[in-house]
């Protein structure tokens, strides 16, 4: 019994390392060498109005820990508002050169929230956050990277290593003792999975990371 359990556990661990989609082409990313990132207000395709602030506020930590300077999202929000831009959709439609002129960032992060919040059913409720992101170079307009991730209360919280695990733990710790909405918690886990580095097919470590300049993770 124990034997079988350990075998299964090892296979799951091994499986975690082995199942891989095709490798992302990092040519543009490595040429652009962005140092500063402007995270745009995330477009929300879910019915929950807290999706945009929830995901936006959680996006800074994984990208900053990946070694980038991330422009302060609350000030960016105020800048948009004081210029009459009130929705994420409108903000994400602004031409790249104008963003570059005003914010001076090297690249911008465009996030879309596909699912956010808690759905209730007779037997169980599930909180789920699904996000996808693209990073565009604000100087050339090149697509540097894209990816997607999700987090759900339905999954077993298994031990997760590396920076992703560390960030997830940080999110969980932040919640303890705080009356808060569950969507925010899972937004933190989903954004960490989406944008923490280094990771296979993930964002490359930035200039402030000790891992900057290393080749992309291949396994």
């Amino acid at each position, binding site marked *: 019994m124990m034997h079988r359990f350990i075998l299964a556990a090892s296979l799951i*661990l*091994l499986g975690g390392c082995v199942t891989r989609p095709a490798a992302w082409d990092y040519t543009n990313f490595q040429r652009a060498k962005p*140092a500063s990132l402007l995270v745009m207000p995330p477009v929300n395709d879910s019915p929950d109005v807290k999706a945009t602030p929830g995901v936006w506020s959680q996006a800074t930590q994984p990208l900053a*820990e990946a070694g980038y300077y991330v*422009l*302060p999202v609350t000030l960016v929000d105020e800048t948009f508002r004081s210029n009459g831009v009130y929705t994420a959709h409108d903000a994400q439609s602004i031409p790249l050169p104008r963003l570059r002129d005003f914010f001076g960032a090297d690249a911008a992060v465009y996030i879309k929230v596909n699912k956010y919040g808690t759905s209730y059913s007779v037997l169980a409720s599930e909180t789920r956050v699904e996000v996808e992101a693209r990073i565009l170079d604000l100087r050339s307009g090149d697509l540097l990277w894209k990816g997607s991730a999700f987090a759900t209360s339905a999954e077993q919280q298994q031990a997760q290593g590396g920076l992703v695990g560390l960030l997830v733990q940080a999110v969980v710790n932040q919640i303890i003792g705080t009356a808060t909405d569950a969507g925010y918690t899972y937004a933190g886990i989903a954004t960490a999975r989406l944008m923490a580095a280094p990771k296979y097919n993930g964002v490359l470590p930035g200039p402030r990371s000790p891992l900057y300049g290393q080749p992309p993770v291949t396994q």
Partner: protein
Amino acid sequence: MSPSLRLWVALGAAILLAGCAQTQKPLYMWDTFSRHQYDTLLHEGASPDSQIQAMEQHAVKAQGANAALPPGFRAHLGMLYLGNGNADKARELWTGEMETFPESAPYMKQLLKRLSGDAAPAAGEKGPA
């Protein structure tokens, strides 16, 4: 399974796990900074005073631990002070953001210019409703 075999299997699993998981020290002390940003972005009238107090304590804690404050920390705190009418403190903190993270200079210079100038409203002040 014998105890020694079990140990080997456990060790094997640990090595596999370590293979996926490089240990890395965080670059910054985050504390509840993301949460403060969330509260502000919600626009539900979060109290700037309690945030200022919590963030000042965070700054002291980081200094004591010789840990770095995250990107945007000083900028956000400056915006809170500005919301309370303390423009000098905002100027000091935004300048600090720029000195700590030179990558922020183009944006911080814009904000500082608006703060001292007569141009459009600066970040931290309410735009047209």
